[in-house]
């Protein structure tokens, strides 16, 4: 018994310490009566019994970002998080599940219960668009997930370190022709949308571009800023801080039109390189078999978010134009983009053959 008393004191002291911390901290309230997020959730109402018309969440919602913190998809998630509480009473939690160029996180969403508490972000990125055609992949974006809405499309830009002798694609091609040496290029993930642009650039210009994949954008940007590779590809929002700091020059954007957030950067086509792609589509996905009333709820919620002035401003400042599309339109866009990617990769002769 003697030993118990000091212990009790410790426990009381510790909990009072924690309590004092808790009192001041406006912690996100999570309903304690919430059902467990995995396993024990009752399945969606069986067909036959009419589902309730209106659905509203009763606890915190997880949005899975399948890429590392600080990357363009993560920034998009954080921007949504910033304005979320204006339109939804329950808190949102952005969860990063990076790995495998986006496959790990996407599969996680696909295997979550379709109860409206797990959503996926960045649906339409490399693992959904280019990877299925470029390599062997156990993941199928159409089978795994359902589209919900589009939020933004991120173009792919080509950049060089500030002290590089390349000021345009022409300089790069000239250098390649004259020296015959390979051009090293940093990309965020192997066979992602950025990687494909670099592969397409090599194909269209005939330059020998050696692509060095990374495990996320932070790594590839650091490599490029440090001059470890000669060129690099990324999305505008990834380049923006370094571009503003004049540590990186942007020499081309791989879309048909110039990017509205960075209108100074010429397209590849303007520079005589016949290559363009969709870029990385950043939509919201949901697990298969989600009841319609839950989908409706989120479709409306994201529409409100995308019309929020603060959200639009944050997104523009980060170089991510907001382009909302509802379920119907986004489903078509997604299919079209996938089709276009298939053809593009086929034309480049890069399609993966077993």
């Amino acid at each position, binding site marked *: *018994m003697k030993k*118990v008393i000091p212990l*009790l004191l410790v*426990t009381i002291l*510790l*909990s009072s310490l*924690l309590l004092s*911390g*808790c009192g001041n901290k406006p*912690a*996100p*309230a*999570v309903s*304690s*009566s*919430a*059902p*467990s*997020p*995995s*396993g*024990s959730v009752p399945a969606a109402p069986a067909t036959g019994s009419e589902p309730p018309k209106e659905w509203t969440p009763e*606890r*915190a919602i997880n949005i899975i970002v399948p890429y590392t913190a600080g990357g363009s998809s993560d920034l998009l998630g954080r921007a949504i998080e910033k304005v979320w509480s204006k339109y939804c009473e329950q808190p949102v939690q952005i969860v990063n599940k990076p790995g495998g160029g986006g496959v790990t996180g996407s599969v996680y969403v696909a295997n979550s219960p379709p109860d409206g508490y797990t959503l996926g972000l960045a649906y339409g990125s490399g693992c959904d668009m280019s990877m299925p055609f470029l390599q062997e992949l156990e993941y199928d974006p159409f089978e795994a997930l359902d589209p919900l809405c589009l939020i933004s499309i991120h173009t792919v830009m080509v950049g060089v370190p500030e002290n590089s002798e390349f000021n345009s694609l022409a300089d790069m091609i000239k250098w390649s022709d004259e020296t015959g040496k390979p051009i090293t290029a940093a990309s965020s993930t192997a066979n992602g949308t950025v990687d494909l642009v670099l592969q397409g650039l090599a194909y269209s210009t005939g330059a020998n571009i050696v692509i060095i994949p990374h495990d996320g954008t932070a790594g590839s940007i650091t490599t490029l800023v440090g001059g470890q590779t000669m060129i690099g590809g990324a999305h505008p929002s990834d380049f923006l801080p370094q571009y503003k700091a004049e540590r990186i020059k942007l020499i081309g954007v791989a879309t048909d039109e110039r990017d509205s957030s960075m209108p100074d950067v010429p397209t590849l086509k303007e520079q005589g390189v016949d290559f363009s792609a969709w870029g990385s589509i950043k939509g919201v996905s949901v697990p298969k078999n989600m009841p319609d009333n839950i989908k409706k709820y989120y479709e409306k919620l994201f529409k409100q978010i995308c019309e929020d002035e603060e959200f639009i401003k944050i997104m523009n400042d980060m170089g991510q134009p907001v382009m909302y599309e509802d379920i119907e339109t986004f489903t078509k866009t997604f299919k079209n983009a996938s089709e276009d990617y298939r053809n593009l990769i086929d034309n480049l002769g890069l399609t993966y053959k077993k």
Partner: protein
Amino acid sequence: MMTKVHRIVGIIFTLLGLYISIYSFTKLEVGTITKPGAGFFTFVCGTGIFISSAIWLFLSWRKKGDSTPFWGKGEWINLLLALVITFVYALVMEPLGYAISTALFILLWQIVIAHSKPLTIILFTVLGTGAMYFLFEKLLSVPLPNGLLPW
């Protein structure tokens, strides 16, 4: 006895190394030296396990037998009990929920393994379960499994 366990573990490690190398070659792409594939590093790693375990196995085989038993007399009883209780705890955590399973776990351990006094048992069962619930669920808002009861 100890030598025997050594040998068994050595053989397991060696076989594991071999298996990893073969898997890397057949199931994954080792790739080329200019473009290493997904199996490149795992192949190196498997070979590393294979070689180092094989050397270890060879060296320890030549060593004289160590007659100390792996377990002393009765040493394994508490060990086994603790593992069984922990395993059962993990099994019932989701169906029963955090509170019931945790309280049961602390209770069982103290009765079966520690033979504590009744007052101590009750005190720590309640305190431990409650404090952790408060910390995770309330302070850090990390959801805990809930089954029969709402907590």
